[in-house]
Structure formats: C-alpha cells, structure tokens
C-alpha cells in the first residue's frame, strides 16, 4: 500500500493502483533505454520485491543464452 492506494505490480511496463472506491488505474514506469533493454530480455524473471516507503526494490534475473547438456 502506498499513499492510501493498493498498488499491484504487473510487468515492468505497468502497474495498477486502486483507490478506496475500487477504482483501478494503470501506472506506467519511467525507464531509460538501458533499463528497458535489460528487462526486455527473454526469460527475465522477478525473484523478489521489497517495498520501503514509496519505493519498490525489484530483483530480476534472466537466463543466460547458453546451451547446457541436461542428463
């Protein structure tokens, strides 16, 4: 919850906020091109989110483009 709104994170492209009247709004993130390039990599996964005050700290990883022998 942030500023009396319920915030739901979706993808890095958007999140949702809901007020006390259940009105839902879409929020867009302000990302620079370097961040977009990293997050747009296929197989990027969010591992953990920690909220402090108004900031969400989001840890993501993506799978290395590397062939691995699987027995």
């Amino acid at each position, binding site marked *: 919850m942030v500023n009396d709104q319920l915030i739901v994170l979706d993808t890095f492209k958007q999140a949702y906020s809901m007020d006390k009247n259940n009105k839902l709004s879409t929020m867009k993130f302000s990302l620079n091109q370097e961040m977009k390039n990293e997050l747009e990599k296929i*197989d990027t996964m969010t591992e953990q989110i920690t909220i402090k005050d108004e900031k969400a700290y989001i840890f993501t990883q993506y799978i290395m483009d590397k062939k*691995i022998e699987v*027995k």
Partner: protein
Amino acid sequence: MKKKLLFFSIIILIVLSVIIFKMYASDYVADENINQEELPPAKDVLNVKNGKYVLAFSEANDTRENKGSFFVINKEGVYLSRSKELDISSPIAFKQQGNEAYLVNNSSNKRYSVNLASGEIKNIEAKKQNDGQSFTLYANEEYVIYDVANDYNKNQQLVYWNPKTPEDKKIMTIPNGFAQSIYVYNDVAYITTSDPDAIEYVHQVNLKTGKLLNSKKLKLKSEEYTQNGLPSNQSIIMFNKKLYVAVTKTTVIPATENYESDVDEYAGRLIQLNPKTLEIEKKLQLMIKISIRIH
C-alpha cells in the same frame, strides 16, 4: 515439449532465487579497494558497515543440495561482505522487521535471521517443528510467521512468535494444503492455501489463542486461476477493511508450424473478500492479457 523441459532444466541449473533487501545503513561509501573478481572472504558475521542491501542467494544444481550465502553490497552493487556457506537453497521470502530480516527457503529446511545493525546471523526454526521447507513468510511489529511444508495430504504447520521474544515460538496447524500467502491484522492471520487438487482456500487464525477461526474454499472458476496446486507468488492483503487476494491464470499455447515456440498467456484478477465471513464479494479483472514466448 522437449524445448520446454530444457528451458526448465536450465532454470534449475543456472538460476535460483536471489533476494534483495534494503538495509538501515544511512549513507554508503564505495570501497575502491574491493576487487569484483574476488568476493570478500566468508565470515560468520556479516560486515554491514557501508552496506546498502543484503542479498541471499543460492546456485542450484540437479541434486538440490546446494548451499547459499548472505551478501552485503553497496549502492553500486560492489560486494562488501559475505557470510560462510549456509543451508540457503531457493530462498523464497526475506522480510525486514525493525533491525531484523527473516529468510525462509523452498528447497531447504533451514531458516535464518540477519541483524541488519550487527550482521549477526541466527537460525530461527522452532525446536519441535516438522522437517520441511517454506513457501511464505510474514513479519510485522507483533508477529513473525512462516509455514512448514510437510506431507501435502496432512495439515501444515505454522510457526509464529513475537519479534521481541524469539525464544518463545508457537506452532499450530492449518488444513487444505501448502500455504501460499499470509497477512496479519489485529492478531488475526489470514492465510491462503492450495490443496493437492489445486483447490484454493483462505483461513482465519487467532494468533493469541492459536485457534483456527474459519476456513473457506475460494470459489474460483477454472479460467480464473492456474490449477497447479503449487505456491505461485500469491499475495493477500487488507485494504480499506477488505481482504484482497491476487490470482493469476497462465495458459500455455503449444508451438505449431506457424510459430516456433510455446507462448504463455497471463491474465490476473484481484479477489475481494469479506474479512469476517471470508466470502468473495467481488472479482476485479486486473491484468490485461499478456503473452510471453518460451524458448
């Protein structure tokens, strides 16, 4: 199918949960003497001086007997300190309450706390709890609570305590499968679970008495959530005197001649519950359907 198996195998082999956590440290000072090619030496106690974040992660392998460590990094991502190897494997939740941070794993029976002021690391399991990993953890000023996932067909344990008296841990059980998410409000814990048939439930527990007050099946249609029965980063929260549970539906469209890879389509809903009766009051369509291609 083969591609998908390879994909998941790669996930298991290369990557497992990494958790990031903001520390209380006010200002950081980058230490230019630290060589990024060499991690700091492993210590029993973390050096949190100048740290900005604490991370916990493990590198998985196919035996699932891997180890992990805690790390302290500064704002630039420079590793400042590292704990000795611990039974950290697929850490799934890392929550801060005051100066303590609590960690549970979903591939290890061990759980730890880290003091963010001193760097001291402690085990936090209750003495008489079952063997089993965790899927969720919740912490506020009055309670720390985690699940112990054991026999899927039996009741699951919850371990909880007041953060001021960590030596006084209590254990109770809840029915209907593995716990997925926990939220505590006014000494009452609200917990979602999923049973072996992938039926979702919500429970209401009085943490002062240790009694289960109410359990309700979440009346969801099959097209509203994914029926895999396993924890899926579900969350539950109290907002404006109502409970909200977020659910996701994943649909896999197999690869065909027209496109070379499977496509996962996601759609989500926010389920509004009455916190007294646990009955569903509203289902809010939340997520615009998105598609993600799987190699």
